[in-house]
């Protein structure tokens, strides 16, 4: 998509402005997509893992493209309806197990360690192919945990065929067209491309309008303007516009978390200000955020999720955190991976937005520097929903590989106080076995659809329906433990997400065997995301239920004033039975809400 490769604007342009913009676009060549494959098989729709091997190529690149198919999209191709399909590199790379010893890993660390730079760069290409080969056999990972954050393919730029084939690009640039961040490729090499994006935005702005979306064949180009900062997503993943825009908002929020909104002042002083150096060493933060767009439903539900814990255990952890929160700590959050164990607000009764929790957790988890178990970190952090202008000071400490404590204070001199608080908290958590309970919960997982009670339990006997606590022996006959492979839960229930509107929290069931690979999970999340967007579409009024059957699933969505339920069933599931099952899920969630949600005492907002 470089400015010198002119190709025609194809596809249905869906953007706000008039013909003049369209003409203009023809010259900047934004729209070069797969027109030659006019009728993709219908079941392609949500299979992101599969795409055209030759997607998004301009006509002028056919020759290059031929070469490329051998080199980049190795293997994996299969023939369907006479068209060669192959997994595109970007998808493979996302799901590929990153081995820390691989050269690609070394390359991406190059930004922080000066000595590790140059040498590795030319090896990245090999690594790419290695990744592909790794994936050849199973193409599947056992867990998402082995995804390694960090920048990949730094050697690419907008002239690279492989770069153009990436399914989802994210760019941050300044209003003078200077690149700030790019998901793929070296920002500095993308200066020309950034300038092109800037030209599009300012062209429309000069006409007194705003460009929000350009549709070009399979590609969507989504724009978000935040003062002097422009954010752009170019994607052919078929995600809804609202979702992509939400993702750009998160990207901006993550940037604000690192720098605060006062970065705008730098642009007021010098419009040509180069911001890349200010974000030095944060590639992993952004790449892991982008990764979470496809594996963390919090990114589209705008709610947080809790680690399932016995009510008493969570209370015990809450009590000690409340203690320190009262002593001048603004927020105290105990988290396990991206799940909240307990969180409390200090005397100021400030409120913590779920999006801030997500950005904070992403920042902490993706920065290896916090993980040094022998150290404690003290870092300025801005919570964009709380106050985008000011830094808070965060004390971060990992108790073990997964569990960490974040104490936030408004005072830069609070370190020693926060350190004392942490020591007190640690003592109590160890004494009351909270840390080992957390580890156990992590192993046991949350709600398994196989455990869905067959008949809704009467409220009075709800105690017996404990989640992952030692289950009473009488429990077992009530449950469907023995199910055949494909159909995990009763009546073909595969998975569900329940979002409590009042609590700003959601609970997501564990994935069954039928949705075990990250790619299948990503596909389901994308389907939920689409469902969420369609249920919340503006203008059409709030929808209450939706039942959708395709070749992958039956999806059922139910929105009430109190909750939203998203459920996925076997594609052959019976509609009436599915509805019945959803009622039982809701009842089940209510029965165990003490364990799966952070209730009462101190919710985030008052």
């Amino acid at each position, binding site marked *: 998509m470089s400015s010198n490769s002119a190709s025609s604007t194809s596809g249905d342009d869906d953007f706000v402005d008039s013909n003049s913009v369209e003409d203009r676009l023809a010259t900047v060549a934004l729209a070069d997509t797969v027109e030659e494959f006019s009728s993709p098989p219908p079941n392609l729709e949500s299979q992101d893992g599969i795409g055209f091997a030759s997607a998004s190529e301009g006509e002028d690149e056919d020759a290059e493209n031929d070469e490329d198919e051998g080199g980049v999209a190795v293997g994996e191709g299969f023939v369907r309806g006479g068209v060669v399909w192959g997994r595109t590199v970007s998808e493979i790379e996302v799901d590929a197990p990153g081995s820390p010893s691989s050269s690609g890993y070394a390359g991406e660390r190059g930004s922080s360690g*000066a000595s590790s730079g140059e040498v590795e760069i030319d090896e990245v290409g090999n690594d790419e192919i290695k990744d592909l080969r790794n994936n050849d056999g199973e193409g599947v990972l056992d867990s998402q945990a082995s995804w390694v954050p960090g920048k990949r393919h730094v050697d690419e730029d907008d002239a690279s065929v492989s770069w153009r084939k990436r399914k989802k690009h994210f760019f941050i640039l300044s209003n003078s067209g200077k690149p700030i961040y790019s998901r793929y490729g070296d920002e500095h090499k993308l200066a020309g491309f950034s300038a092109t994006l800037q030209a599009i935005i300012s062209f429309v702005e000069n006409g007194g309008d705003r460009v929000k979306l350009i549709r070009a064949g399979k590609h969507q180009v989504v724009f978000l303007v935040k003062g002097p900062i422009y954010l752009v997503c170019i994607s052919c993943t078929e995600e809804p516009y609202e979702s992509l825009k939400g993702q750009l908002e998160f990207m901006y929020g993550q940037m604000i978390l690192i720098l605060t909104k006062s970065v705008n002042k730098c642009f007021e002083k010098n419009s040509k200000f180069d911001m890349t150096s200010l974000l030095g060493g944060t590639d992993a933060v952004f790449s892991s955020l982008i990764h979470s767009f496809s594996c963390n439903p919090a990114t589209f539900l705008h709610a947080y999720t809790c680690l399932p814990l016995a009510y008493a255990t969570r209370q015990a952890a809450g009590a000690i955190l409340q203690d320190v929160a009262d002593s001048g700590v603004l927020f105290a959050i105990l988290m396990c991976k991206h799940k909240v164990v307990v969180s409390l607000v200090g005397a100021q009764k400030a409120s913590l937005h779920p999006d801030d929790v997500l950005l904070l957790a992403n920042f902490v988890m993706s920065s290896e520097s916090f993980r040094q178990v022998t*150290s404690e*970190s*003290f870092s300025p952090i801005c919570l964009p929903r709380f106050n985008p202008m000011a830094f808070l000071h965060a004390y971060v400490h990992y108790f073990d590989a997964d569990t960490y404590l974040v104490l936030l204070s408004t005072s830069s001199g609070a370190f020693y106080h926060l350190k004392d608080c942490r020591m007190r908290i640690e003592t109590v958590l160890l004494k009351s076995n909270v840390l080992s309970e957390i580890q156990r919960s992590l192993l046991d997982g949350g709600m398994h659809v196989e455990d869905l009670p067959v008949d809704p339990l009467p409220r009075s006997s709800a105690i017996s329906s404990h989640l992952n606590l030692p289950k009473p022996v009488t429990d077992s006959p009530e449950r469907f433990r023995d199910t055949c492979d494909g159909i995990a839960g009763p009546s073909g229930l595969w998975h569900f997400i329940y979002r409590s509107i009042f609590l700003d929290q959601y609970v997501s069931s564990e994935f069954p065997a039928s949705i075990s690979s990250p790619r299948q999970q990503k596909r389901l999340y994308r389907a939920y995301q689409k469902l969420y967007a369609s249920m919340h579409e503006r203008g059409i009024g709030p929808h209450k239920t939706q039942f959708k059957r395709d070749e992958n699933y039956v999806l059922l969505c139910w929105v009430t004033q109190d909750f939203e339920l998203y459920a996925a069933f076997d594609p052959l599931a019976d509609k009436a039975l599915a509805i019945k099952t959803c009622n039982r899920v809701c009842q089940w969630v209510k029965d165990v809400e003490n364990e799966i949600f952070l209730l009462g005492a101190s919710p985030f907002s008052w």
Partner: protein
Amino acid sequence: MARTSNKNIQAKLVVLGDMGTGKTSLVLRFIKGQFNDYQESTIGAAFFTQVLSLNEATIKFDIWDTAGQERYHSLAPMYYRGAAAAIVVYDITTMDSFVRAKKWVQELQKQGNPNLIMFLAGNKVDLEKKREVEFEEGEQYAKENGLVFLETSAKTAQNVNELFYEIAKRLVKSSPPTRPGGMKLHRGSRGTERRLFCCSV
């Protein structure tokens, strides 16, 4: 500030320098004896404690390993305020980092504790082939500014323990029961230079 109680000294030590010069690697080499080829960028600052026993005293270091990124620069005073010792690190393979190191030295001379014991460490001497900053250059600058100079390698552990032991020794010397006597050695000349800037503190 170094606090003396009997023969125990608690001292705040701050490590400053450009990004990627190996500040964290030096600290981790000292504390854990480990080296990681791909050390991640530090976020904000990391806090470590380490106890060193000398014949004369036991020194408990509170080490602030700061992030080298530009965005954290304005927050640096938070970390070096009240420090008894500072290590300014540069990477001998990049002149830029040496230039940056000089700026840190200037800032510390202006803003830091006037009795601050300052060390200049030229790190990554294992990369002799890529050297851009000559030993003499570092030594000369250190001499002119009253710093203690060492070339180190966190990778090979060369001079790393020496660096911290040397700091410890000087802390012991500079913190006898009667505090004002602490000005000794070559630091006399620097002391007067510093006083000029006292008003800016």
